[in-house]
């Protein structure tokens, strides 16, 4: 062992270790320099917007900013006692400003999410707010007696929280109360957990179907001569040349009750003309169309891994006395597991976020969680809830990824 007190020196007298460090640092710096543009692009165009959007799932300052006096008054309020005159006067002051600034709609929308009916209460009261006179409690109750009700104020108290678990709770079918307690959503309004489960179910079934259909194809491709396999590979890739929408609509033509498949079933006597199969606008439709669209993502990694398995392994196994099946199952299959791992992960992750296809062919029981996210983004405009559901979905995916890593091992995955 070299003496620690006397480090080995390089030719110019600096310690060798330091010299090595400098050399490595320089090469690392230049390597880093090469990825900086891409890194910056990814951060600016991908990571920052995603974080900003997901942030909305737990952060909603609308009420607190637009109704500052009311928010201050509400923060001191227990949530169960009778609302005070100060609270009413703060509310009127805020309503007057909100009416003038044309922000009342946003306030009303926010509170209406907590309690139905608040929207018209806020907008109609705001129109009269400027003419109200003290004592404001009586004045407001005179306008609408709803103002005297405790739950109106409780809804406002929930809405006034800037950092709120409310949306996350809602995305798991729970509800936040004014006193901070958490209860389950009314039974007939629980939807998200059900959809999360269904999303997982559809994704798993699609993944398994892709594996069962894709494995033999990949095996065939990998064992054929290069020329033939390249030709067949083009056929596998062919669907990528047409738009996703076109492929999905093609399935509508195929599967609808007056469609090609049902016509064939009727023609071959599988079913009668007035008892055609429901193959689309339901879960079956989602499964069929998604399996078809995602199949190449299973075949490609499988193929590239299988292509790399030398045929001598199977021959070796057979020479040792293994039957065709044993040679496949004990020798070939375990070596294709890396491709299965990659394909399964790829298809599952893609499937879990699928939305156009289920939207078009899923009907009512083929909808997935992404369709609800889409609904809240485009229809109900509840972006906070959309963000919260997205956050939960992200956490679920990461969790599955972690489990997958523990079971299969991420380093066991090969894309080729």
């Amino acid at each position: 062992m070299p003496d620690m007190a006397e480090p080995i020196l390089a030719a110019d007298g600096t310690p060798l270790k330091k010299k090595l460090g400098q050399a490595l640092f320089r090469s690392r710096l230049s390597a880093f320099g090469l990825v900086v543009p891409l890194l910056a692009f990814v951060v600016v165009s991908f990571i920052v917007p995603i974080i900003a959007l997901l942030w909305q799932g737990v952060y909603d300052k609308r009420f607190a900013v637009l109704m500052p006096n009311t928010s201050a008054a509400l923060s001191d309020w227990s949530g169960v006692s009778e609302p005070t005159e100060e609270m009413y006067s703060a509310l009127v002051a805020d309503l007057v400003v909100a009416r003038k600034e044309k922000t009342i709609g946003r306030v009303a929308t926010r509170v209406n999410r907590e309690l139905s009916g608040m929207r018209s209460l806020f907008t109609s009261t705001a129109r009269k707010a400027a003419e109200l006179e003290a004592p404001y409690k009586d004045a407001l109750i005179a306008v609408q007696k709803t103002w005297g009700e405790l739950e109106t104020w409780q809804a406002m108290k929930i809405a006034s929280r800037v950092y709120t678990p409310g949306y996350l709770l809602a995305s798991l079918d729970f509800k936040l109360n004014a006193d901070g307690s958490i209860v389950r959503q009314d039974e007939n309004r629980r939807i998200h957990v059900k959809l999360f489960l269904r999303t997982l179910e559809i994704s798993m079934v699609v993944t398994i179907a892709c594996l069962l259909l894709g494995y033999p194809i990949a095996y065939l491709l990998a064992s054929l001569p290069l020329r033939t396999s390249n030709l067949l590979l083009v056929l596998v890739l062919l669907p990528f040349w047409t738009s996703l929408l076109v492929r999905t609509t093609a399935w509508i033509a195929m599967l609808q009750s007056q469609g090609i498949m049902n016509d064939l079933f009727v023609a071959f006597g599988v079913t009668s003309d007035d008892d055609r199969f429901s193959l689309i606008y339901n879960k079956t439709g989602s499964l069929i169309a998604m399996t078809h669209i995602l199949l190449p993502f299973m075949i490609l990694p499988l193929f590239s891994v299988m292509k790399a398995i030398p045929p001598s392994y199977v021959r070796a196994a057979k020479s040792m006395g293994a039957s065709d099946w044993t040679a496949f199952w004990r020798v070939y299959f375990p070596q294709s597991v890396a491709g299965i791992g990659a394909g399964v992960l790829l298809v599952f992750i893609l499937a879990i976020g699928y939305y156009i296809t289920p939207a078009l062919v899923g009907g009512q029981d083929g909808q997935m969680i992404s369709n609800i996210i889409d609904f809240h983004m485009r229809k109900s405009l509840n972006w906070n809830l959309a963000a919260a559901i997205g956050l939960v979905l992200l956490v679920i995916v990461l969790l599955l990824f972690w489990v997958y890593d523990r079971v299969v091992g991420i380093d066991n995955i090969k894309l080729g």
Partner: protein
Amino acid sequence: MPGIGHLAKPDKASRIRPVRLEVMEMGKREKEITMKRDSLILGVAATVLVAGAAQSGSITAVSWGGAYTFSQVEAFHKPWTEATGHVVVSEDYNGGLAEVKAQVEAGNVTWDIVDVEKSDAIRGCDEGLFEPIDTSILPAGADGTPAMDDFMDGSITECAIGVIVWSTIFAYDHSKIQDGPTTIGDFFDLEKFPGKRGMRKNPKATLELALAADGVAPDQVYEVLSTPEGVDRAFAKLDTIKDQVIWWEAGAQPPQLLADGEVAMTTAYNGRFFNAIAGEGKPFTIVWDAQIFDTDLWAIPVGAPNRDLAIDFLVFSTLTEQLAAQASYISYGPVRKSSLPLVGTYYTNPDLEVLEHLPTTEENFATAIENDYVFWADNQDELNERFNAWLAS
């Protein structure tokens, strides 16, 4: 736009040149049209001056696509371009405020004028997404009725001006069903009329229809729906046909579903069916019982790049003549009462009087339910959730 550039240069003389051109052509036209034109030209001249926008420009008008946008292009866009030299770029959307909200909040507004449903018009106004519109710029009707009296009740709001009255109705294919349904109750009667049903994937109108089918009188629908029991009752009625329903989202879907035989009967916007019947000769019969009518309005997003032109276009397109002309292309009711006498025949079929196909015509209107936008503004979060949960279960 080289073809029209010379017509509308930003100087004083060119501002009136299109008017002169029109006047020179007048002699060639029939008298009736000339009269229409005349008032039109005056209107245009007035609004051009009021708006003070004479630059040759273009606006982006956003609407629902399909036959509806076509009717607007024919009745609004083309005449406006002819009269002012400005171009209208037409874009389609599927309703809702999402895009407007995204554009306004991002500070990058590309739409100038949007055709919105009434509930969205009110909500967008409350949330500061739409510009308030000074109603005094609306000219009187062709018959001289002041604008405020000429427009139907509720079709002028703070931020949006009404264009049409449309309604959600249902229809069936009379070549496949003899002695077809006549009431909304029949729509929910699977025994009498077996087969799939098409309905819009939205609680709006769907819940109302369910209650009407369950025997609630048109004027009490919202009263009932305001109570938890009423909501339960509506869903219970929907439960009876749930297995047979195919849910549509885009307005173009239901006529297609019906034509393909995918459904025995389906709800739709009345104009879509009218076009399938009048334009494509489809054997559809519309059932007007318990029609749910609503208004579509023009609204201008805050920060629209060509705001002044958009206002000019809005005023032009809601003139008595323009609204009446639109009805020749699609059977939606004009919001100006003064337009009704001017409503003509269908544009490809001079024998087809459009008037009797309008939702606002008396015999169609007997059991009509007006969409209550206040109810929906208050309850849509909760009912959407419940509807989605109900669909998913």
